[in-house]
Structure formats: C-alpha cells, structure tokens
C-alpha cells in the first residue's frame, strides 16, 4: 500500500465551548477522489479550514507526503500560504474570488507561490521576469480553457454567473499546482446542467492524476465520482468506505434521516 498524500489523525477543533471537530481521522492517496460528506454544520468546512491553516486546530496531526519519496511535512501550525506552497489548494463554500480583478488575473494570482519576481524584477522588467510573466499568463489562460472560461478572460470576476465563478475558483486553485485539490461544495447553487458540466470537469482533472478531496451535498455526484467516502456528523467520523458500503451503512442513513442517498 502506498503512503497517502494527506494523512490526518485525531484532528480536533474547539470554538469556545463548541467542539466542531472531534478526533477526526482521514486520508487521501495519490490519484484518488475522496468525498467528505455529512449534514450541514457537521464540521466539513471547518476541517478544510484546519487543514489549510486558516484555523489553528486544537489538536491532531496533518501529515502531507509528496509522492516520489519526499519527506513528510506536518501541516500543523503552518500559515495558510505555506500550506498552499507545500501543495494543498482549495476552493471556498462561499465563493471568494477577487471580484474587481479580471477572470484571467484571478487565475494568475494562483501562480504567485510558484513564481518569484519581486521589486527589482518588477521595476526593471528583467529578462527572467518577462519570461516568468509570459509563462504565468499562458498557463493561466490554458487553465481557463480547461474549465471552459477562456472566452471570459477579460471580464471582471464579479460579473460571472454563479456556476462560472465556481469553476473559476477551481482554475485558480489548480494554478498553484496542488498535490491535493480541496473542493468545498463545488456544485452548491448549480442547476442540473451546470452540475453535469462540473462532474465532467472534475473527472477530467482527476484523470490527469490529480488527487481531490471533495465536500459535496449532491449525493448523485458524490456516489458517481468518489473512490472512497468519509461521512461525518457533529464533528465525528461516522463511516468510511467505498460508495456501495456507504449507501448501505445504517449510521449514515440515520444521520441523513429523510434524505435520499440512493439517488
């Protein structure tokens, strides 16, 4: 068995008196699509926030192991930008684009942590800077093509339709060349057709070997995409397994009481 890219053990997060995450274990291996599901308020977004360094968890470890025999890193205590640099990139449940920047520029920001030009390079536009800038633009543009937004490259991000904004967030995250892509409810608010497009997009991204951790409420999407599923409720993991196992798990059915997970 390969070592997982991300291995989270005993992750705990307290907000004052509320325990939003309770000794959570989770792992994602290279090339996998793993889903994290659970009712609203279960702590899924909090999990993302802890892993990406936006919240400092109360306890637990998050070990990132880059494939190819690199040394493991504990993400605990790292700043969000360092976590991204190490190889985790995410989207947000409540879309957080740079609304007064163009679509292309949004993606270009994603290249920031993989590029280097600084004050000197900016002022004197050295050869290296120009080359780097060209590469940033080209790569960002090709990512826009991949998510189907190339024709909107010069629009302001805020003028995009909802579904397009979600896809832009994915492109922006991919621009950081992540080892693991974290998607927080990417299909929320999308109509069935947009959801279908999204499914194709995620498949395409995954087929290139990209590992993905996905939070999603749309069971159809989750069941059809995921290799493995983690289910949580009240901050605790209540089940994990392949889609067929999850579908048959009585605990999960209880947590989702009344909701249709056979969809």
């Amino acid at each position, binding site marked *: 068995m390969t070592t997982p890219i991300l291995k989270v053990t005993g992750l705990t997060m307290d907000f004052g008196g509320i325990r939003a995450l309770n000794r959570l274990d989770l792992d994602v291996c290279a090339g996998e699509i793993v889903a994290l599901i659970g009712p609203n308020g279960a702590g899924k977004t909090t999990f993302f926030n802890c892993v990406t360094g936006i919240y400092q968890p109360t306890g637990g470890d998050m070990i990132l192991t880059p494939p190819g025999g690199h040394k493991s890193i504990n993400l605990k205590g790292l700043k969000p930008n360092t976590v991204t640099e190490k190889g985790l*990139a995410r989207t947000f449940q409540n879309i*957080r684009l740079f*609304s007064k920047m163009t679509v292309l520029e949004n993606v270009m920001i994603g290249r920031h942590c993989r590029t280097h030009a600084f004050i000197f390079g900016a002022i004197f536009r050295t050869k290296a800077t120009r080359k780097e800038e060209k590469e940033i633009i*080209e790569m960002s543009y090709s990512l826009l093509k991949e998510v189907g937004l190339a024709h909107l490259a010069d629009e*302001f991000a805020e003028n995009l339709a909802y579904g397009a904004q979600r896809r832009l967030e994915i492109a922006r995250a991919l621009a950081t060349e992540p080892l693991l892509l974290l998607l927080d409810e990417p299909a929320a608010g999308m109509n069935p057709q947009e959801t279908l497009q999204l499914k194709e997009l995620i498949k395409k991204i995954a087929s290139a070997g990209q590992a993905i951790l996905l939070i999603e409420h749309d069971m159809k999407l989750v069941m059809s995409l995921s290799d493995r599923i983690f289910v949580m409720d009240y901050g605790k993991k209540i089940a994990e397994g392949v889609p067929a196992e999850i579908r048959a798990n009585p605990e999960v059915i209880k947590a989702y009481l009344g909701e249709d997970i056979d969809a």
Partner: protein
Amino acid sequence: MFSYKEIKKTALISLWFVFLTFPIMVIKVDPIERIVRWRWDNAIYVGVGIFFTRFLIEYLKDRNNKRQAAKRSANKESQPIIHSIIANPKQRNIVIVVLLSTAFIFPFIFSTYQTNIMITALMYVVLGLGLNIVVGMAGLLDLGFVAFYAVGAYSYALLNYHFGLGFWAVLPIGGCLAGLAGLILGFPVLRLRGDYLAIVTLGFGEIIRLVLENWNDFSMGPSGISNIDRPGFFGIELSLNGSIMYLYYIMIVLMIITIFIVNRLQDSRLGRAWIALREDEIACQAMGIDKRKTKLVAFSLGAFWAGIVGVIFAAKTTFINPASFTFLESAIILSIVVLGGMGSIIGVIMGAFILILLPEYLRAFSEYRMLVFGGILVAMMVFRPQGLISNIRRTYTFNKDQ
C-alpha cells in the same frame, strides 16, 4: 422629480438642517465683551443651500441611473475620454509630448511664485502616488503617512545641520530611513485588521510629531530647524530664483520616475498580489501569498516615497518644524488618493493638482480648504467610491490559440 411630495420632503430636510446648524451658525457670542450676535442670514443660507443641494444630488442620481440603464441596454461600456486616449498609442504619445513640453517651459513662462506653487503640487503628486501604493493598491489605510514624510524631512535637516551633508547625499538616505521606519512600524501592526491599522498608524503619526515637539535636544522642539541648505548644483551657487527653478526640475524628474516605477509595480506579480490582498485577504493567503511580507513591502515602499518628498520639502522651505507634520497633512494626502481614485495613477495625479492648485488660485476658497477636503472624503465614498478616474482594467494581449 419636481413633484409636490419631493419638494415638501426637500423643504423639510432643509428645515432640519436649519435647526441642526442653528446654535453654531446663527449665534456667535463674545464671552469677554459679553455681546451676542444673531446671524440670521446664515440660517437662510443654510436653508436655501441645502434645498438646492438636495435637488442637485437627486437630479444627478437620477441622471446616473438613466445612464446606467441605457448602458445596460446598449450592452457596451462607455469609456472615459482619458481611458480611450491611453488605449490609443498615437494619441497617448501626443498627449505625453504636449504635457512634457508644457512642464519643461513652465518656469520660463510663469513667475517664480507660480513655479513655487507648482513644486508644491508636484510634491503632493508624488506623496499621493506613494500613499496610493499603500491605500489604493494594497488596501491598507495608513493615517500616519505624514510620519514618514517627517522622517525624511528631519533626516535631511539634522544631517545637514550636524554633519553638513548635502541634499543629494541625504535624498536616498532620507528615503531609506523612512522606508526602514515603515518596516519597523509595519512589522508589528500589519497583522491588525484594516480599521485598527488605520487608528494605530494615526496614533504612531501623532507620537512622532509629539516627540519632535518635546524632545528639544534632538529636534529643537517647536521652534524647528532653519537654514537648511537648498539642493546643490555641481558646487555652483544658485540665485533664489535659480534654485527654485532647479528644484522644480528635480520634482518633475522625480515625478516621472515615480510614475514609471509605480506603473511597473502595478503591472507586476507584486502589484497583482497587492490588489488581491485588498480584495480578499483570506482567499489571497489560500492562494499562497504571504500576507505579512506583501503588506510590509507595500507599506515601506510608500514610506520610502514619503521620505524622499520629505527631504525635498526640507530643502524647499529651508525651515521645518513639527507643525508641518500634523494629522491633517495625512488627511490631505488621503483625500488626493480618494478623490483621484484609489489605485489609479492618473486619478491620483489629477487629484493632487485639483486639491492643491484650486485652493491656491481661488484665494477666497482657500479658507474652506479643509472643510472641502473633509466633504470630499464623505461625498466620494457615498457617491463615487471609485474616484474621479477609476483604475483601468488591465487586459493581457498574447497568442490565445496555442
């Protein structure tokens, strides 16, 4: 719009303002001579003034709405003239040549007095561009900008007084000291939330001023430092007129350099990071941008420019004291950036010219300068937050079909 209902509402609002301003505007007492003056005419001015102002505002709002609706139905965006000129390289070059030659011959056509005013305006252009990096691009509301200006000015004054160092030697030193001060202050405060940052920088600015005022051994207190050398010109003694002209050209060159650098910064990886930081800090960090470092660079670059202009200020007036570095100075520079359009280089330049030159030439109006500056800050935020000239949206041209 001129319906009975609207007129009645406007009249009521006017009455409210007459009431509101009554004690301050109408009554004036002389507590020593024990005389009361009732200035009823002021009440009338307020009433009538508010009445028409409100109609004007409503009219403008109305027109704006209609325009916006028309624009939406026509489905294209009209560009301000300035943007279309910039977009067209031929027109742009013509404008630049005209402006440059005007700037060049200005001191030959106009009096020394005018040139002097122009120097001041140019200084504010550069200060505005410096603050624009901090406030406009990086979105850090720095209310203590004047402190760095003071660091520059006092660097030159003191180094000149104690060690006889000349203008050209101190120019980079002053800038660097101010930049360093920015770095030192920025390090602890830049992790604060936006509004706290504003207050801390304000407090810091006041501390610097108060220290300059009270630490006599160091800064010579409120009486300040005089007889500061004017800029040297290859060892030649210049006449007063000559040295003013010289300073004017120094300022022109400095402004051009500043515009060039700020423009390049804005169009760089760093500039994009600043703007992204202004838009959404959390998303920015999640995209791998080091928030602390990026802010710190913006903050101390802005301070650097303030320091440079501070040195020039000391050389221009040959006398400085702490009274030149009050919070109001920071507020003026902020008004320039806000009026022009945060993040917009051309806007800031225009803002500086408008706010500095208008009060100089409309003498009757100069008394109302600060009143107007305050009003501008409010009005711009409420009615036109993007400023006179909003920032141009950068597009990238490249081969799209690889």
